C-alpha cells in the first residue's frame, strides 16, 4: 500500500491516523514501508507516485511518500533529522549534500547501490562527498536562458542560440526598447547566483574553490555589478522595483509577467514555465562573455536521492533508488521532469516519447558542446546563506541605488569571506 500526502491530505490523513490509533488499529505499513520525502509540485508527485506503485506491483516493499514545496521542505527535513525520524529516502540538493553528508545525516551508498554500469560518470561524480557516494543524481540539467520566442518574433529579432553574447544582450536590449512595448530584453540577473557563477567560469575563475574560499576578488565583483548597472541604466533589463516582484515562483517570474523577454533559468524548467505561458518559449545558453568563449556551463545533477543516516534498512532504500533511476518503465513515467535521465538506456528509451519542450531540454543538455567546463566542487557550507542573505540583498541595494556597484562589490567579498571563514572553521 502506498501512502501519499499532499498538504490537505496530510491534515485529513493525520486525523484518520489518530482515529485509527485510538481504535487500536495498527496499519500494516507502519512496520515495513520505506518512507520517502521530496520537494516539488503536483506534476512531480503524480509521476513519483506512479513509480512507487510500479515498484510495489513488482512485489517489492511499499512506500510511504510525502511531498512539500521547496521552502517547507528543508525546515521539515532538518526537524525530522534532529528528532531521529528522518525518512529512509530523501530527495537532496547539491547545495545541502555536503552539510548532510559530513554530519552523517545521510548514509554512504557505495556498497549497497548495486549495478549502475550505464550511469553517466559525471553525474555519479557529482553525488560524491569526500570520495564516497552519498547521492544518486535523478537527472542532469544545465543553467539556461529562458526565451520568450513569440516576443522576439513580434519585434522581428532573431531568437538567441547557444552562440549569443553579453554584447548581443545590449543589441537586443536596444531592439526591445525601440519597439516600445514595455517589455525589456532581460530580467535583472545581477543577484542570480548561477549567472554570476557562469560568468566567472567563462573568465577562468569560479564562485567557490575546493578549499571553501571565494574563487574571485572584489574587483571582479565590482565589474559584475557595474555591467548590470549599465544594462539597468540603458533599460536593457527590468528596473529594480519590477524585479523585486519576482518571489521565485514561476508565476511571478519576469517572463511570465511579460516584463522581460528572457531570464536566467534551468533546462528542466522549460516544461513548467511553458505550462503557465501562452507565448511559445524556448531555451538558449547563458550569454558568452565574448564570441567563442565557453566553459561556463556544466551538467549539474538537478537533485539526488539519498538514504537517511538513521535508516533501519539501507539496502532496501538503495534498492528502490536503483530501480528509480535504471528501470525503463519508471524512466518512461518520470520523463525529464527532474532533468535528463542519467542512465544511458533509459535515456534512449524515452527520447522518442517526449513532448516538444522536453525534447528541447534534452537536446540542449546533450549538445552543450564547448559551453561545458569542468564540474565545480560541491558548494561549501553557508553557500546558501551567501546567496540568500548577501548576494540577493547587496544586488538589490545596488539596483535601488542604495549602494554604488564599487561599494557593493567590495562589501560582498568582505562579508562572504567572513561568512565562509565562520562556517568552515
Amino acid at each position, binding site marked *: 500500500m502506498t501512502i501519499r500526502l499532499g498538504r490537505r491530505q496530510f491534515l485529513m490523513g493525520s486525523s484518520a491516523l489518530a482515529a485509527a490509533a485510538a481504535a487500536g488499529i495498527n496499519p500494516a505499513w507502519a512496520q515495513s514501508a520505506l518512507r520517502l520525502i521530496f520537494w516539488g509540485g503536483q506534476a512531480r508527485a503524480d509521476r513519483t507516485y506512479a513509480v512507487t506503485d510500479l515498484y510495489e506491483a513488482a512485489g517489492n516493499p511499499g512506500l510511504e511518500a510525502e511531498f512539500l514545496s521547496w*521552502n517547507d521542505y*528543508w*525546515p521539515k527535513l*532538518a*526537524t525530522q*533529522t*534532529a528528532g531521529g525520524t528522518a525518512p529512509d529516502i530523501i530527495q537532496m540538493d547539491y547545495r545541502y549534500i555536503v*552539510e*548532510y553528508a559530513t*554530519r552523517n*545525516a545521510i548514509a554512504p551508498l557505495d556498497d549497497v547501490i548495486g549495478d549502475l554500469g550505464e550511469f553517466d560518470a559525471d553525474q555519479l561524480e557529482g553525488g560524491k562527498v569526500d570520495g564516497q557516494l552519498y547521492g544518486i543524481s535523478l537527472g542532469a540539467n544545465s543553467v539556461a536562458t529562458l526565451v520568450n520566442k513569440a516576443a522576439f518574433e513580434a519585434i522581428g529579432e532573431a531568437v538567441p542560440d547557444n552562440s549569443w553574447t553579453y554584447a548581443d544582450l545590449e543589441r537586443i536590449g536596444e531592439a526591445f526598447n525601440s519597439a516600445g512595448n514595455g517589455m525589456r530584453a532581460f530580467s535583472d540577473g545581477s543577484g542570480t547566483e548561477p549567472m554570476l557563477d557562469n560568468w566567472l567560469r567563462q573568465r577562468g575563475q569560479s564562485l567557490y574553490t575546493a578549499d571553501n574560499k571565494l574563487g574571485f576578488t572584489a574587483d571582479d565583483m565590482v565589474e559584475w555589478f557595474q555591467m548590470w548597472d549599465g544594462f539597468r541604466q540603458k533599460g536593457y533589463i527590468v528596473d*529594480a*522595483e*519590477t*524585479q*523585486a*516582484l519576482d*518571489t*521565485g*515562483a514561476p508565476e511571478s517570474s519576469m517572463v511570465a509577467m511579460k516584463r522581460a523577454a528572457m531570464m536566467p533559468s534551468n533546462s528542466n524548467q522549460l516544461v513548467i514555465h511553458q505550462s503557465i505561458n501562452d507565448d511559445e518559449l524556448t531555451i538558449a545558453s547563458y550569454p558568452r562573455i565574448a564570441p567563442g568563449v565557453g566553459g561556463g556551463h556544466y551538467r549539474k545533477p538537478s537533485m539526488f536521492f539519498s538514504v537517511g543516516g538513521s535508516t533501519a534498512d539501507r539496502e532496501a532504500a538503495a534498492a528502490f533508488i536503483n530501480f528509480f533511476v535504471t528501470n525503463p518503465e519508471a524512466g518512461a513515467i518520470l520523463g525529464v521532469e527532474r532533468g535528463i535521465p542519467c542512465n544511458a538506456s533509459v535515456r534512449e528509451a524515452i527520447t522518442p516519447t517526449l513532448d516538444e519542450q522536453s525534447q528541447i531540454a534534452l537536446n540542449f543538455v546533450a549538445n552543450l558542446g564547448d559551453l561545458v567546463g569542468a564540474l565545480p566542487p560541491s558548494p561549501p557550507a*553557508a553557500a*546558501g*546563506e551567501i546567496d*540568500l*542573505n548577501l548576494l*540577493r*540583498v547587496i544586488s*538589490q*541595494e545596488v539596483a*535601488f541605488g*542604495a549602494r554604488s556597484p564599487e561599494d557593493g562589490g567590495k562589501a560582498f567579498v568582505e562579508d562572504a569571506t567572513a561568512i565562509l571563514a565562520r562556517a568552515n572553521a
Partner: protein
Amino acid sequence: MTVHAADAAPQDAASGTSKWSRAWQSHAPGYLFLLPWFIGFFGLTIGPIISSFYLSFTDFDLLTSPDWVGFANYERMFTNDRTFATSMRVTFTFVLFSVPLKLAFALAIAILLNRGMKGLPLYRAVFYLPSLLGASVAIAILWRQIFAGDGLVNQFLSIFGIVGPSWISNPNYSLWTLIVLSVWQFGSPMIIFLAGLRQIPQDMYEAASLDGASKWRQFWKITLPLLTPVVFFNAIIQTIEAFKSFTPAFIISNGTGSPINSTLFYTLYLYNEAFSYFRMGYASALAWFLLLLIACFTAFSFLTSKYWVHYDD
C-alpha cells in the same frame, strides 16, 4: 473593565487537617478536566521554552548534537550582526507606527458605531472581518496584488493622474504596506473599545451638555479619561502582537524580507536563522531576547500606567 471572578474556594471554616483533603476532593474533577490542557501546556509550551533557553547557549544546528558555547550567541547579536540591527529597526518602526494608528482607527470607528445606528450588528461584523482574515495567507497574497506596480492602488491613483511606485517592491514603501495591512485589522480592539464605551454612564454626557460642553470637549474630558483602562489593555495586547507579527511579512516577501531587508521583521530573521541556515542555537538566543524585549515593554507600560490610566473607583 470589571472582572467578576467566580468564587472558587468553598466558604467553610473547616479545621486545619481536613481542609486540604476536602479542597482537593472538590477541585479534583476540575483538574482532571484541565489535564489535557496541562499536558499540552507543559509538554508543548513550557518544555520547549526551557529547552530553547538551554539551546540559546549552544551551537545547535539540528543535525549534530549541541555544544555549549556560553554567551557567544548573545555576544554576536550585539557586536557582530548587522542583520540583527536591521531587523530590530524594521520591527521597531512597525510597532511604533502600526500600534498607535491601529488604536486610533479602532477607537474612531467604535465611537462612530456607538452612536446607535441601524444595522449595527452587521457593521460590527463587517468591520471585525479583517481581523479574522488578517493573518491568513490569502490576504497577504491579495495585498501583493493590491500594492503591486499595476495593482488596485495605482489604478485608483492614475484616475488623478498620479503614477504611483510599486509599493510592495520598493524598499521605501514596502514596510508601510505592511503597516497599512496591520491597521486594517482593527476589528478586535474596536470591539473592546465598543464594550468600553457602553460602560460610560450616559448621565455624564447629559450633565456636560447642560453645562455647555462641546462634543469635542466631552470626548477629551469624559470619554477618553474613562476609557483609559481599555486603551491601556488594547495598547499592551496590540504591542505584543506587533512584536510577534510574522505571517504577512513571510508571505509577502516569500520569506526573504525583501526588497533589501526592508520587511525583515525580527521574527522573520529569527525564522531564517533557525530554518534556512539551521543555526538553532543562535535563533533560540534571538527568541529569548525578543521575549525579554516584550517583557520590558509591558513592564514599562504598567509602570507608567498609574500616571495616565484612570480607574473609576
